[in-house]
């Protein structure tokens, strides 16, 4: 029997472009999640840890990040096998050639060649990548030998599964596990967890997904897999364990009155650890002009509460029928302008914004 931990796509040093000033926190979370992976390995008493590529976002990430990753990996009680992926391919100048990495302890093993590695009852067959892009199946490097012992492949690429075509970098045939005589093929590259059953119906090929979500809308991420194989040919037992740190919440709502806006706040307040949550809220619909102010209040409230908030209410239109506040405006040019803007508001975001501004100016005296 063999038990190991399958993780991938740590993408350390990743850009976090649309999260405002939360970029550093988002990057830091990936370290925290990495420590969670190693802690999990310790808790479950696995035989080894397998990182199926893209541990680093790029070969040119800051070397201090490499040192920190190596520290995390070195804290593992069992060997950690690191496969170069398409983001960190084994090219000259690669991270894996850097002093920061090569000084790592023996427990951290780079899968630099296709040379099989034996740990306990298992033979690990690595398919390291040496380029950023490629159209060849990396698992072709594994020699189809008669089964002997538990054989575990580790590769990085795009599984060719009908209906799930992603990019065509490093395509991996759906029958790779059978072709190579593998009990389990550990894959990296997809950020969402995915399992493909083999011919025998057993889960022979799996993506662990990234250990920490990288952006909004990325499902089934923030996990690691604890895989147990009892004997050669036995179906692998896969346990999905959460390792992620941050929550990426996306909300899209239709509004028509102030209460709708309040409801969104209510829902988001339910998030237990707001300082570990990023929120992307998109609002559409109409609001009485007087309530447009409410949107700003909500934005302010959320921004203070959460790690990061994207609050897009640009598609919220003032109700065309609501003209009470306009009637209250001083007669003459200002009121005429307000009516003119209201007529344009449904079509023109600028007019909407102008109307909101006018509303704000008109209410300044009250506010003071």
């Amino acid at each position: 029997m063999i038990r190991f931990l399958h993780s991938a796509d740590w993408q350390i040093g990743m850009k976090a472009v649309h999260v405002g000033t939360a970029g550093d926190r988002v990057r830091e979370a990936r370290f925290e999640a990495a420590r969670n992976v190693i802690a999990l390995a310790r808790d479950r008493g696995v035989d080894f840890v397998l990182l199926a590529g893209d541990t680093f976002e790029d070969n040119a990430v800051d070397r201090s990040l490499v040192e920190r990753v190596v520290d995390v990996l070195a804290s593992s009680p069992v060997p950690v096998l690191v496969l170069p992926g398409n983001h960190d391919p084994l090219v000259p100048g690669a991270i894996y050639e850097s002093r920061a990495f090569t000084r790592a302890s023996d427990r951290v093993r780079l899968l630099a060649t296709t040379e099989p590695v034996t740990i306990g009852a298992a033979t690990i067959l690595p398919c390291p990548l040496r380029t950023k892009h490629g159209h060849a199946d990396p698992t072709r490097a594994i020699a189809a030998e008669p089964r002997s012992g538990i054989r575990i492949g580790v590769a990085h690429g795009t599984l060719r599964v009908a209906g799930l075509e992603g990019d065509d970098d490093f395509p991996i045939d759906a029958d790779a596990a059978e072709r190579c005589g593998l009990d389990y093929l550990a894959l990296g590259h997809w950020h969402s967890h995915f399992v493909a059953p083999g011919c025998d119906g057993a889960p022979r090929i799996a993506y662990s997904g990234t250990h920490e979500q990288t952006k909004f809308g990325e499902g089934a991420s923030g996990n690691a897999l604890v895989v147990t194989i009892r004997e050669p040919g036995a179906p692998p037992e896969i346990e999905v364990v959460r390792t992620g740190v941050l929550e990426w919440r996306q909300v899209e709502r239709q509004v028509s009155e102030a209460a709708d806006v309040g409801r969104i706040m209510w829902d988001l307040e339910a998030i237990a650890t707001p300082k570990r949550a990023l929120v992307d809220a998109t609002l559409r619909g109409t609001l009485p002009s007087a309530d447009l102010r409410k949107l700003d209040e909500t934005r302010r409230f959320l921004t203070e509460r959460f790690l990061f908030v994207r609050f897009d209410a640009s598609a919220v239109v003032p109700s065309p029928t609501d003209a009470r506040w306009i009637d209250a405006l001083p007669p003459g040019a200002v009121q005429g302008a307000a009516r003119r803007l209201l007529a344009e508001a449904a079509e023109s975001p600028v007019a909407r914004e102008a109307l909101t501004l006018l509303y704000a100016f008109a209410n300044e005296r009250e506010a003071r």
Partner: protein
Amino acid sequence: MIFRAIEIESWGCFTTPLAIGPLAEGVNVIHGPNATGKSTLASALARGLFDRHKVSGSDAEALRPWGRDVGPRIAIEFAHAGVEYRLEKRFLVGPSSRLLRREGSGFALVAEGEAADERVRAILSATPAGKGLSKSSNWGIAQVLWAPQGELRLDETSRDAEVRLRDAIGASTSSPEGERLERRIDEEWSKIFTPKGQLKRGQGASRLVTVEADRRRVEDELARACADLAAFEEASRKLEALRDGHASLAKDQQLTKDRLVELRARATAYLELVAKEEKIASEESAARDRAAAIDRRVRALADVRAKRRELETSKGDVAAKLPALEAEVGARAGEVNRLAARLAETRAALDDLESMRIELDDARRFRAASEKEATLRPRIDRIDELDRRIAASGSRPSTAPSRDELSAIGRAAAARDQARAVLDASALRLEITAEAPVEIEAPEQRRLAPGESVEVRGTPEVSIRIRGVGIVRARGPSDLGASPADALRKADETLSALMQPFGATDVESLEKRARERESSEATVQAMKLERDTLLAGSNPATLRSELDRAHRETVELRARRPDWTNSAPHVESMEEAYTKHHASLVPLVRALEDEHKTAARSHADAEQSWFRERTKFESLPAQIQREIDAERRLVDEDGLDEAARAAACEDAALAWRAATAAARIAKEERREFGGDPAGDVVRTEQSLERLDDAERRAFEAVKLAEGALNDRADEGAYSTVARLEEQRARLADDEARERRRADALECLRSAIAKARAEVVDLLVRPIRARVEKSLPRIVGGEIGSLEFGADFRPRAIRPEPGGDAVGLDALSGGTAEQLHFATRLALAEVLSEKAREVIVLDDPLVFTDAERMVRIAEVLAEAGARCQILLFTCHPERYRGLPVAREFDLAAIRRADPAKR
């Protein structure tokens, strides 16, 4: 408000009181020629109504009547809101102000002083004036309704007038809150935009601009970081290529090393083959030498034996030839001796011929020497004599002057004679001719009879002393410079100095001497010429030695041949005898000598033949013996008999053939091996060296590239890119937000501007409608549509509906004037809707032609139905068509006034 009547006194040009009125409620034409005070009166209305009575200042001083120190005074009767008022004001001197209202048939005081001024302003909704004269902006609606001369165009609309107009029209454009909002929006807008609507930059730039600049800066940094990242990846690719290159070189290097090992083994094998071949070849050579040696011996024996046989045959032959040869020698010797004897005889005759030749030579020399002696001696003697005579003439001293000296002396003598003549001529002459007997006492005593005269000469003065008379003295002019006496003295000195060396005192003797000297010099010259001719280029010594030589020769020859002492030999006969003898003897001797030589040679040949055969004969026995010895030696050397020797010879030949075959096989073996691999080894070694070198360089390049790559990797370019991209995204978001706000403000502002335009349009519509109706009537055609500003002033005209609006500048002078006229009338009509108002026009239409004036009269008449019109003009005829007009002829009123009084 409308006017009822006006009175003024002591006002500008009006010194006497003037009263106009009652005025019609419609059109009033107040006319008079220029300078009758039309404009003064028109302006006096405004002064009276709007100026404080205590007005002061230089402008106010202008109101003071010409040349008088009295206060200008005005009284205006007017109606307003159903009340009839009278206002009386005096300015500058004893200023006062009184407002009265009609009560029944008279007037009652309403207010006085400042209160009266204030009350009038309130009635007319005018603003209080300052210290000086009121400005038209303080005139309330009069500001728009009163047009001073040449100011028909409305340049601005006062605030008061605007308010009154808006009230009259009943529309409102704004409110304090509305204005506050507009100001607030403008304030926010101008934080971002310049007055011209450009984004503010530099100092005080909006956040949009600074954020945009930050974003651009970050983008520049990002571009650099991306370039760094690309450089890192390029360096990685380069290193990979270098590593591949190095690996390929290392592989070539190994292959070459392997090949070199193989080549070196082959080279060794080749060397072994060559050595073996050489050994076999030397064995073959030895066998060949042995066979050749035996063969040589066999041949040598055969040769020796053949030679001995030949020598023995030759010995017999020579012995038979020798006696004949000996006889031949004897015969030849006899012939030689006979010819030698004959030759000796002939040669003795030759001695005589020789002594004849010597005597002939001597005779020739003797004759030549004798002749030379005979010619030379007299020549030498003559030369000697000439030399003596020349020497004698040269030693005599000369006291005669030369030709040049003589001519100098002649010139000096002439100069002296000239000086003397001058002296003589310059002397004073005093002549006394006596008329009666006188006695001269000095310079010498003398008596002169009558008719006798005496002359005294002298210089520089002469005198005659006459007894009983006195001294007669004559003096010449004094100080004449160099006196003729001095000149004479000087000429004398010059002449003496020239003659002194010759010891002569007179020129004639000197001339004689000079002639003598010249003749003597000619003689010597002739002698020298003769001597040179005699020497003929030689010199006396040479001639003398030649003479000696000739003399010695004759003496010597005479000594040798004494018979020549008395008579000289006859050379020609001697020459004849010698030639004859010589011609007979010499050819004979030559023929004999040739014959003797031929005979001697034949003898020698014969002797030689004999000697040769004899010698040969004597040497043959020894030669034969040598051959015999040689044969014995050859046989003794190998000690074999003939048969054994023949067998040995055959054996050696066989052994040699076998060795040759072995050598051929070895050679073939080497040929089959191929060429010498040594060259390949050298080439391969060189190739390996080159590969070693290339591999080392490639290795160094790899190390260098690794260093460069590590440096780049240490930069962590990707992390920089990530950080900058995040920064850029943040800034771009900020920028978009700021831009949205700027756009919204701009949008809001332009919406307000459009709304305001609509409101203004509503406001000015009554004015515009009136003008658009009246102006075409005046002009007599379409004028298009007009645009009015919120201040009720026409702004632009749009000739074509929907076409572009053009400025009023585009209108002709007449049309523009008519537009302003129509506008003033329209304003007056609008303001008169509730209560009649007055419009004051001071000679308004100066550019308008008669045709239009007719139409204007109609328009005025219609306006007169709604408002009061005060028209001041100097062209009353232009308004004659106005049916309802009331006319006031200023000139007539002024003329009438005194009478009225």
